[in-house]
């Protein structure tokens, strides 16, 4: 049963977050891997290294009466619950709002968990937006939105991305980060649609290369590369685990 919510704001009447210099994460469960996240600076595509892509994923909530505002309200309230098993989202225990910070634990290669952070920079009734932090595989700006198209509500994820550093750019060109990214958002959108009783709808995907060039001054971002730092930290975590037994 979808709760009725008649108000729907069109146009950007939302709220931008107050700028923050560094991430300060909410209280986290003990089992969470929080390496290379606390204290990192928000970045985004302007400070990324690789080619600039816009990747858009959308699903039509066919035969659902949910309005765009209802979809976004539920998405904000239950954001983490729609994530596929390949990732975990640890945010504050409340609906997502501008200024929130969160930790992500993402499945990486060879069983490594990649920990990284995000800042919610903008939210309104029909959208909200994350920007990535130092160390994330992408300098990314990701907007989650919902809108009406020919009488059907559409839920959409649109990511503006540059790989953060040369290593992640190589991985992106080999599809090692982009394919899992695509699969991840397909899964998240299908889970969201299922909440509204919509099953079997395809996720439409579009990837547009906006700027082929590389931003070489940002190559230094590799210092914070979350894959490297989490890989180096993994043996430490294993040893600590053994010591705790």
């Amino acid at each position: 049963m979808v709760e009725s919510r008649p108000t729907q704001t069109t146009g950007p009447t939302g709220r931008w977050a107050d700028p923050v210099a560094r991430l300060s994460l909410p209280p986290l469960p003990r089992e969470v891997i929080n390496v290379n996240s606390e204290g990192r600076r928000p970045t985004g595509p302007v400070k990324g290294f690789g080619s600039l892509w816009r990747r858009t994923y959308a699903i039509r909530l066919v035969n659902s009466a949910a309005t765009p505002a209802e979809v976004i309200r539920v998405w904000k309230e239950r954001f983490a619950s729609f994530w596929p098993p390949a990732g975990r989202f640890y945010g504050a225990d409340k609906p997502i709002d501008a200024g929130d910070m969160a930790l992500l634990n993402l499945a990486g290669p060879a069983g490594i968990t990649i920990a990284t952070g995000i800042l919610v920079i903008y939210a309104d009734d029909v959208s909200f937006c994350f920007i990535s932090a130092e160390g994330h595989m992408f300098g990314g700006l990701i907007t989650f939105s919902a809108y009406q198209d020919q009488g059907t509500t559409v839920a959409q994820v649109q990511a503006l991305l540059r790989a953060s550093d040369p290593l992640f750019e190589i991985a992106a060109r080999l599809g090692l980060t982009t394919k899992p990214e695509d699969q991840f958002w397909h899964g998240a959108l299908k889970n969201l649609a299922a909440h509204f009783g919509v099953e079997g709808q395809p996720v439409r995907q579009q990837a547009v290369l906006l700027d082929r060039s590389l931003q070489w001054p940002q190559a230094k971002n590799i210092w914070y590369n979350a894959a490297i730092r989490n890989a180096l930290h993994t043996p430490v975590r294993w040893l600590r685990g053994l010591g705790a037994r």
Partner: protein
Amino acid sequence: MAQSTVDIVVRSPAAGSKILDVQGEITGSAEEALFAALSTAGSDAGTILLNLSAVPSIDSTGAGLLIALLARVRNQRQRLLAYGLSQPCRRAFELTHLDEAVGVYADEAEALASL
């Protein structure tokens, strides 16, 4: 496609520069108008100035459009400046770091004086 939320006029304040007078809210629906205006401005001008004094608000998709616009301008070997930012626009520039890549000025006179 959704109806554009902006109107843009292109003018030439001085040799080698073009001003895009943007009026309205910058949202995702502004994409066609923004890039059409950039095409009208052409790649000959060394500097593109965004006059945002008639832009009361911007959403995150609109901020993404400005990041894409910045990439296009740089590819054309041009500089991008902006002036007349409202508080929401200023905040969007800060949070996305556009303010570190785009020269931001209070008004047109100050922006032109920087050329």
